C-alpha cells in the first residue's frame, strides 16, 4: 500500500483532471443540451468519483459539495435534453472553481489548512437550497485507508460501456528515485568497462610473458581471458542498451508537450470570460515544445493570473469592440518557443492596451513615485510599475483601465524561477506579457557536428537548411565571408571560432554549412568540419559556473552516457561580424595527431599545441589513430604508450611499416620511464623523442615538436 503522501499526490492529480473534464462537459451541455447525454454522464461520473475519494480521505467539505453537484444534475432534479437554468450552470462552474482552489490549497499548504474550506461549505449550502433537500452526512474514515474503487464504468446513451483509463500517476519523488537508480546503472557500466580494460591488459601481459610459447596451459589461459573480455563487452553493451531505453522512458514520463499542459487551463479561462460577459478565443502556438512538468506546475498560477487579467482588463466588452471596429470575440494567444537557453512564453491579447498616462497618475496618487520621477520614466519603466506591490487594486483598474490584482505575485514567481517578465503594449491594439525562463530540461532534436575536433549539438529547430559548399561559392566583402542561400546573402562564420576554438580556413573541395535562422528572420551560415547526424536529446541547463559562456545554450544528453554541449544559436546570429583577420589555411598548417586514452592528456596536448599554432587531431587509441592517418595528412604524432585496443608500440610499428607513413616523426609521452622494458622497446627506432609524464614540460615538448618538424621539412 502506498504511503499517504503518494495517495494524496495521486488524488490531487486526478482531481485536477476530473475538474477540467467536468468543466468541459458542463459547458458542452449548456451549449447543446439536446446532444449532451454523454457529457452529462461524464459530469456525473466524475462528480461521483470526486465525492467518493474525497470522503475516503476525510475531505468532508469536498465530498459534500460534490454530492450536491451530483444531485443538481441527477435524475431527481434534471431532465436530460432540457437546457439547465443559467443560475444552475453558473453555480456549478463556481463550485468547480472552488473545488480546484481547495485542492490546490491542500496540496500546497497541507491537510490542516482552512484555505478554501468556507467557500466550499457556502456553495454546498447554496446548491442545497437550489436542490431543496437536507444534506446527508458522510462518515470520516481515518487517513491511510486505500482509495475507494472508482464508480463502475457508466453506460452511455448508445448502450456501450466506456473503457477504464489505464494510466497511473507517479510522484516526482519516485521519478527522482528512478533517475538515481539509472545513474547507478551508468556507474556500474563504467565499472564493467574498467574490468574489461583490466582483462585486456592482462591479456597483453600474458602475451608479453609467453612470447609465442606453445605451452598449452598458457594457450588455455589466453583463451579464458579472451572469453572473459568478450563476455564483459557483451554485458556492457547490453547494459548500455537498457540504460538508453530507461532514459527514453524517463523522458516520456518527465516531459510533456506544452499544449497538453496549457489546454488544462483553457476551460477556466473560457468560463471566467463567460462570467464577466466577454467573448474570447484562445490560441496556442509552439505547443509541441516538450517541457519539464515541474516547471509547468510552478508556472500554472502565474499563467492563470495573466489569462484572467487579460480577460478582465485587457479585452473590451463585445459592444465596445464592435464600435472600435474589432471582432466581438477577443483573442488571447500564447506563443512558446526556445530562444538560446531560455523558454519564451508570450501571452498576448488584442484588447485596449495600457494607458501609460493613467498608470503614471495612479503611481503618483499612491505615493509610489513623485511627479518629477514619473515624468522622467521611460515607457517600459512605466509599464514595470504595474508589477510593483501595492499598485494593483480593483479601484486602480477602474480608474486607469490598466491591469488588475496580483501582477506583483506573477513577477515574484517568475523571479523565483530565475526568469524575467517583460510587458509590451500599444494603446488600442493590445498587450503582451513575455515570460523568459531558464529551461529545466527540454527534449528536442539536435544536429551533431564536429568542429575543431569537438562534438557540438545544434538545435534542429534553429536550422533552416544544411548545405555542402565549396570555397569557390564563398565571396568576401570587406573581409567578411558571405554565402548566397536561397536568394539571400548570409554571413558565413566558423563554428570553431564561435566556440572560441582555433579555426582554419575551409578546405577548397567543400565543407558542410548549417544555415541558422533566428526568430526575427535573420540568417547566418555556420561552417563545421563534419555533420554526424540528427538525434533526440534531452537538453539541460549548463551548471552555474559555465553560465557566463554565452556560446553554450545547454548540455545535450544523447543517451548511453554521452553528452555534448549545445550551441547558443542566438549568440551566433547576433554576434557582430568578426574583424577581417585571415585564418590560417589548412593547406599550410602543420597537423599533429595526439593519441592518448585519457581525456585530460588529450585536452592538455591539444591546448598546448593549438596555442602554438598547430592544427590538432586527436584519437583515443592506436586503432582510431591509424584510421585518422588513412584520411588525413599528419606531419607528426604525439602518442601515449599504454592504450586499449592498440597500444603505442604496435601503432608505431604499423606506422613504420607503411611506405606512406614510415617517416612520420613521433613523440612518445608516457608514464613509464624510458629505461623500462616497454619504454626502451618503444624508444628503440620507433619514436624520435621520449617524454615521461612525470617530467613533462610544455616548453620542452613544443621545442621538440618544432625541431622534429623542421628536420622533416629539410
Amino acid at each position, binding site marked *: 500500500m502506498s504511503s499517504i503522501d503518494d495517495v494524496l499526490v495521486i488524488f490531487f492529480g486526478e482531481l485536477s483532471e476530473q475538474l477540467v473534464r467536468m468543466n468541459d462537459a458542463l459547458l458542452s451541455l449548456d451549449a447543446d443540451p439536446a446532444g449532451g447525454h454523454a457529457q452529462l454522464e461524464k459530469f456525473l461520473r466524475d462528480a461521483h468519483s470526486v465525492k467518493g475519494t474525497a470522503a475516503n480521505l476525510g475531505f468532508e467539505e469536498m465530498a459534500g459539495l460534490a454530492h450536491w453537484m451530483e444531485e443538481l444534475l441527477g435524475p431527481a432534479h434534471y431532465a436530460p435534453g432540457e437546457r439547465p437554468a443559467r443560475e444552475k450552470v453558473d453555480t456549478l462552474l463556481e463550485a468547480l472553481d472552488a473545488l480546484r482552489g481547495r485542492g490546490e490549497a491542500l496540496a500546497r499548504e497541507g491537510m490542516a489548512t482552512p484555505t478554501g474550506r468556507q467557500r466550499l461549505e457556502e456553495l454546498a449550502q447554496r446548491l442545497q437550497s437550489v436542490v431543496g433537500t437536507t444534506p446527508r452526512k458522510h462518515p470520516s474514515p481515518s487517513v491511510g485507508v486505500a482509495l475507494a474503487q472508482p464508480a463502475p464504468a457508466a453506460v452511455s446513451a448508445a448502450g456501450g460501456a466506456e473503457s477504464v483509463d489505464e494510466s497511473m500517476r507517479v510522484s516526482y519523488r519516485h521519478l527522482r528515485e528512478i*533517475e*538515481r537508480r*539509472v*545513474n547507478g546503472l*551508468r*556507474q556500474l557500466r*563504467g565499472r564493467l*568497462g*574498467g574490468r574489461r580494460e583490466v582483462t585486456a591488459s592482462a591479456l597483453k601481459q600474458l602475451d608479453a610473458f609467453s612470447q609465442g610459447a606453445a605451452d598449452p596451459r598458457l594457450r588455455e589461459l589466453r583463451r579464458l581471458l579472451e572469453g572473459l573480455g568478450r563476455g564483459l563487452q557483451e554485458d556492457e553493451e547490453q547494459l548500455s542498451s537498457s540504460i538508453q531505453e530507461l532514459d527514453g522512458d524517463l523522458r516520456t514520463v518527465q516531459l510533456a508537450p506544452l499544449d497538453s499542459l496549457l489546454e488544462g487551463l483553457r476551460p477556466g479561462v473560457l468560463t471566467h470570460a463567460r462570467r464577466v460577459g466577454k467573448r474570447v478565443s484562445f490560441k496556442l502556438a509552439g505547443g509541441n515544445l516538450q517541457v519539464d512538468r515541474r516547471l509547468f506546475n510552478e508556472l500554472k498560477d502565474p499563467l492563470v493570473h495573466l489569462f484572467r487579467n487579460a480577460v478582465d482588463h485587457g479585452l473590451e466588452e463585445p459592444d465596445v469592440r464592435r464600435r472600435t471596429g474589432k471582432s466581438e470575440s477577443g483573442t488571447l494567444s500564447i506563443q512558446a518557443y526556445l530562444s538560446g537557453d531560455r523558454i519564451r512564453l508570450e501571452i498576448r491579447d488584442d484588447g485596449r492596451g495600457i494607458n501609460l498616462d493613467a498608470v503614471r497618475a495612479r503611481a503618483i496618487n499612491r505615493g509610489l513615485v513623485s511627479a518629477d520621477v514619473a515624468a522622467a520614466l521611460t515607457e*517600459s519603466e512605466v509599464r514595470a510599475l504595474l508589477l510593483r506591490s501595492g499598485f494593483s487594486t480593483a479601484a486602480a483598474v477602474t480608474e486607469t483601465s490598466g491591469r488588475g490584482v496580483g501582477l506583483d505575485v506573477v513577477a515574484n514567481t517568475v523571479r523565483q524561477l530565475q526568469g*524575467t517578465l517583460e510587458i509590451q503594449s500599444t494603446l488600442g491594439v493590445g498587450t503582451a506579457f513575455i515570460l*523568459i525562463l531558464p529551461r529545466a530540461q527540454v527534449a528536442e532534436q539536435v544536429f551533431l557536428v564536429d568542429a575543431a575536433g*569537438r562534438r*557540438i549539438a545544434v538545435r534542429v529547430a534553429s536550422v533552416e537548411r544544411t548545405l555542402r559548399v565549396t570555397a569557390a561559392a564563398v565571396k568576401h566583402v570587406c573581409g567578411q565571408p558571405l554565402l548566397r542561400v536561397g536568394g539571400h546573402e548570409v554571413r558565413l562564420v566558423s563554428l570553431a571560432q564561435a*566556440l*572560441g*576554438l582555433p579555426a582554419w580556413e575551409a578546405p577548397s573541395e567543400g565543407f558542410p554549412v548549417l544555415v541558422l535562422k533566428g526568430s526575427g528572420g535573420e540568417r547566418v551560415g555556420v561552417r563545421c568540419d563534419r555533420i554526424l547526424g540528427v538525434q533526440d536529446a534531452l537538453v*539541460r541547463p*549548463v*551548471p*552555474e*559556473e*559555465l*553560465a*557566463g*559562456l*554565452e*556560446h*553554450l545554450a545547454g*548540455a545535450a*544528453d544523447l543517451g548511453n*552516457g*554521452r*553528452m*555534448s*554541449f549545445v550551441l547558443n544559436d542566438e549568440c551566433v546570429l547576433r554576434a557582430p561580424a568578426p574583424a577581417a583577420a585571415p585564418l590560417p589555411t589548412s593547406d599550410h598548417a602543420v597537423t599533429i595527431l595526439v593519441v592518448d586514452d*585519457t*581525456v*585530460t*592528456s588529450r*585536452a*592538455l596536448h591539444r*591546448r598546448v599545441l593549438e596555442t602554438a599554432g598547430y592544427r590538432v587531431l586527436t584519437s583515443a587509441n592506436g586503432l582510431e589513430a591509424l584510421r585518422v592517418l588513412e584520411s588525413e595528412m599528419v606531419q607528426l604524432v604525439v602518442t601515449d604508450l599504454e592504450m586499449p585496443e592498440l597500444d603505442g608500440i604496435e601503432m608505431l610499428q604499423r606506422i613504420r611499416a607503411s611506405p606512406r607513413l614510415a617517416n612520420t616523426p613521433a613523440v612518445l*609521452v608516457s*608514464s613509464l620511464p624510458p629505461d623500462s622494458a616497454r619504454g626502451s622497446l618503444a624508444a628503440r627506432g620507433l619514436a624520435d623523442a621520449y617524454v*615521461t*609524464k*612525470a*617530467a*613533462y614540460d610544455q616548453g620542452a615538448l613544443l621545442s621538440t615538436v618544432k625541431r622534429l618538424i623542421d628536420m622533416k621539412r629539410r
Partner: protein
Amino acid sequence: MRGRVRSEQEEELLLRERAKLLSGRRRVAEAPSESFVLFRHGGQLFGAAVRFVRLGVRARELLEVPGAPAHIAGAVSVDAALVTVVDLSVLYQLPKIGIQDLKSVLVVEAGGARLGLASEHILGVKALFRESIVPSPVAAGALSRSMVTETETIQLIDVPALLADGRLRPSPRREKT
C-alpha cells in the same frame, strides 16, 4: 630494586609529574579526528572532508567545455545534471609536476551547490587528528589548512569556501531588454 626514601617535597613533585603525564595521555586518546577523502592530482595530495563528498565518478565521461577558462577541466553528468569539474592545480596556481592521466572526478557538495574535482587517483578515506591540522603554507583560497605527514603535505580543501570562490561564479550574461 630498592629506592631511596623521598622527601615530602620530592614526592609532591613526582606526583605532579605523574598527574601531568596521565592527563596528557588522555588528551591524545580523546583528540577528535575528522575523516577526509584523500586524492592525488598534479603531484599534490589533497583531502576533502567526507561529509562534503558526494561520490567519485570515472573521468572517461568527462566532457570538454569549449572556450572555458583553464581551471575548468570539463564537466560530468551526475544524477541527471551536469557538474563542472575544476583543476585545483590550475585554479590555485600550484606548482604542477608533469602531466596527469585524469582517472576520476570527486564530486563535492555544500549548501546545495556541487562541484567536481579532477583527480588522478582517489586513495581512500583517512581519519586525521584535528590537532595535526595546521594553517597551510600555500594559504590559497580554499586551501587554508594542511597536514604534514612523514613524507608529504596533505592540502585540505575547505569545500564551502571553494564553492563560494568568485572565480567559479559566472559574469552576468547579456539579456534581451
